[in-house]
Every structure is written in C-alpha cells, then in structure tokens.
C-alpha cells in the first residue's frame, strides 16, 4: 500500500547553500493494516518520511507510492485527495485555535463534503468515544494536553482513514496519558487502519512489540518485526 523506493530527500537551509540530506536511499513497504514504528533520534528522518506520505514534501530522488500512486507527481492543490485517506496525530496537537472541540473534529468531515446531520451524529459519537462530552463546546486553550491530544485523535479517526500518521503523539504527555493514547492507536489498528507511529520513547517501542524501522542520520539501519528500541 505504501512503498518507498530508494528515496532521498535533501533540504537547503537558509544558513548554508550546501544541501543537507534528511533521508538517504530509504526503501521499505508497508502493507494494509500494518502497525509500524519509526524509531530514531531527533533529526533522524522520521518526520520527513511522514511528510512525504502526506504530500507535504516531495522526494529529491526515488519514488513514494501510496496505493500505487506516485506522490512525487501529486500537485499541492490536489494533495487533499490523498489527505482524505490519512488521519494525522501530532506532538503539538495542531488544533484550530478558533474552533471548538466539536468544530475541530467536524472540520475533517466537512472537507470531505459530508452531510450536515451526518457530521453532527458522527462527531458526537467520536467525542463520546474519546470521553470529551463535557468539553464539546470548549476551545483548545481551555483543554489540558491529554484532552487536546484526544481531540486530535478524534479528528484523525472521524473520516475512517486508511492510514493514521502519528508524529511523536506522546511527546508532550505524562505516562498515564501516553498509555491511553497508545491503547487508542492499537484499537484503531485492530479496526483495520494502518498506523505509522514515529517516536523516540524507548518504553513505548519496547511495550508495543510491533514492526520497528530504526533510522539514523537519514538512513534505515534496522527493519524488524516485533522490534525493540535500539540506538
């Protein structure tokens, strides 16, 4: 379903004209329904992989295929068609600050032209699922970090995406909230969605016992089923 073929990605920084390699010759395949952990230190290339899957970045060389579609050839204005198949969970939550909990979650459905009454029913169901009924009309700045992350997860789930991209979703959370979020991700995976989790949390990686792609300085150094944290 998702395939990287000898993908390289170079960035030019504003300080130096010399391009810096964020990803070097990365090749791997992720099948439907997989749970894959991208593991590595900061700057290893985890986020670059997620950004290429979500069409935020294009590879400098090589191919990124999503359902056999070459993402390097997708125009920025057509990227929304790919993103309708993806749910995003971010470390800094990325909620829309001037929308309520309900509106933030509903926004993902509105972008897919869903019917108004259907949106209301589905959003209310998901809000109940993540336990935020009492915060339905609250704004993000009125929520705790754990609550904001649950809104972010609800927004990622609402349109039943094929793939969930979780970029360090537990980075800003305490151990209790971290455990809850990981449980939710496992449930999403059991329900059939592919989950790609980027993290450098050793305990999370070791506890999950899922496929682990380990990155170091832009290269994939290990690819193990039921892998462990190794850095």
């Amino acid at each position, binding site marked *: 379903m998702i395939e990287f073929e000898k993908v390289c990605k170079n960035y030019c920084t504003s300080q130096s004209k010399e391009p810096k390699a964020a990803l070097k010759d990365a090749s791997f395949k992720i099948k439907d329904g997989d749970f894959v952990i991208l593991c590595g230190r900061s700057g290893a290339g985890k986020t670059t992989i997620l950004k290429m899957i979500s069409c935020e970045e294009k590879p400098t060389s090589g191919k990124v295929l999503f359902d056999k579609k070459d993402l390097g050839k997708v125009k920025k*204005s057509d990227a*929304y068609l790919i993103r*309708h198949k993806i749910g995003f969970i971010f470390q800094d939550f990325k909620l829309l600050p001037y929308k309520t909990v309900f509106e933030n979650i509903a926004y*993902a459905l509105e972008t*897919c032209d869903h019917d*108004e009454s259907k949106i209301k029913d589905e959003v209310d169901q998901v809000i109940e699922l993540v336990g935020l009924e009492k915060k339905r009309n609250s704004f993000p700045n009125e929520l705790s970090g754990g609550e904001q992350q649950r809104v972010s997860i609800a927004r990622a789930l609402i349109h039943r995406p094929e793939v969930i991209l979780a970029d360090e979703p537990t980075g800003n959370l305490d151990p209790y909230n971290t455990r809850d979020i990981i449980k939710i991700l496992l449930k999403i995976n059991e329900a059939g969605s592919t989950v790609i989790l980027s993290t450098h949390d050793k305990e999370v990686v070791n506890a999950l016992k899922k496929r682990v792609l380990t990155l170091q300085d832009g290269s994939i150094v290990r690819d193990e089923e039921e892998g462990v944290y190794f850095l």
Partner: protein
Amino acid sequence: MIKYIVKILKSGWNYLWRQGFLSFATSLVIFIAVVLGTVLIIFHGGASFMTGIIKDKIDISVYFNEQVSMDKILEVRDQLLKEKKEVIAKVDFVSSEDAYSAFTKDHNNDTYTQSLDAIGSNPFLPSLVVQTKDPAQYKVVSDYFRQDQFSELVYDVNDYRRGFAIERLSSLATGINRMGLAVTIFLSLIALIITFNTLRLSIYSQKEEIEIMRLVGAKNSFVRWPFLIQGALCGFIASILAFIVFLVVLFIFRGSLEQLFMGFNPFNFFISNILIILIAQLFIGVGLGLISSYFAVRRYLKD
C-alpha cells in the same frame, strides 16, 4: 452548493467574532484607508468648487461705442459664438442701463455714486462679458475684437488691465488641480502602505492555521473562502463606521468647515453625494478586506 456557501459564510462570521483582536486591528486599519479615500473624494469636491469659482471670476469685457445699437451688439455676439464656439463658454450682454444700476447698487450712496450724480448722465458703455472655456484662452477673444472689422464698433477690450489678473487666477486654478493630484498620490500611497501592513499581519497570524487546514484535508477553496468572507466583513464594518463618523463630524463642524474652505460646505457635499460616497466607501473597505485576505492566504496555497 447552497449548503457549501452557507457553511463558508458561517465559518467566516465565526472567525470574525472569535479572532476578536485581529478582526478589530484589521477593521481599524481598513477604517483608516476608507477615511483617507473619503477625504480624497471630499477634497476633489472642494477643489472643483474652488476652481469653478475662480473660473467664474475670469471674464473679458468688450465695450462698444455709445452709438452702437443693442441689435448690432447682439449680432456681434452671435457672430462670436458662431466663429469661436470651441473657445467660448458664455457671453452676456450688459446694457449701459444695467451697468449703471449695478454700479449704484454696489456703491450705495458712497462718493462714487455722488460723483456719478454730479455728471448728470450715464457714462457707462454697453458691453459683452465673455467667459472662455479655458481661462488661458482669453487672448483669442481679445485678438478677435481687435480685428479691423470691429474697429468702428468696439471702444475698448479690457484685457490690458485684466490680463495679468487673469493669468494669475488661471495659474491658481491649475495649481489647485496639481495640488489635488499630489494629495491624491500621497494619500493613495499611505492607503497602499497600510494595506500592505495589514496583509503582512494577516499572513503572520494565519500561517499555521492554513497549514493545519490543508493537512486535515481541506482543498484550497475551502481554506480560502472563510478568510475572504472574514476580510470582507472587516471591510464592511470599517466602511459603515467611517460613513457614520464622517456624517457626524461634518455635521458638527459644518459651520467652521464652510468658513475654512471659503464657502465650500463639506457636509452639504457629503449629503448631496451620499449614495456615491457610501458605495465608494464600501468599495474601498470591502475591496481592501478581500484583497488583503486573498494575498494573506495565497502564499500558502500555491503549488
């Protein structure tokens, strides 16, 4: 489609109220631009009024000999209108009686009137008072009456005495127009700078939101329209506010403003052009709101 439009309008309206301070700041900046635009309109009205007054005061009097009949003078007038119609704005016949009564009216019982009484007869000659379309063309008229064919009829053309004054007044009228143009350019530049700053402010504050919207799966139009609606609403509020402020301020200071502008009453001008001014204010306000919002989001929606 209607549901889509309603959704976008609702979204734009919510953004306007929820981004209270940003909306207020944007509206305030647009308000200043609308005020500048309105000042320009009123300034143009004032400039036209003043140049009109100056032009009205610029005329040439052609005095005819005492024995020339009124019919002959009117015939000369018709000939002038026919031959120099591209130059002439207005020609008035003033009989010697009219000139006498106008003089006595202007100099009611002063020494001039007493001297006139002492003469015992009407010393004023019949004349044609000519106004040209362009004050600079008075020479065409004076040269016309100095032709040989009129030497028996015309006693005097007063451009020798008035020529200097006419040229001064004419250059004053041109000066007012030039000043109007300079003020227009200056105020337009200020409005442009203000708009540009609004734009930068919008870009800075809305950058992350636009990125989130796109990541969640919104297509470009779905991201763009609520921002455009929000900008247009800010412009609408700014325009209405500017309209009310002008109405109240010009009404309160109508007396002193009329004195200041030598007879031009900005309040009367505002009232007599109220619809045009309101439309112009809405055009400036809503237009600036739309344009600044458009440019604010455009950068992040490019391929």
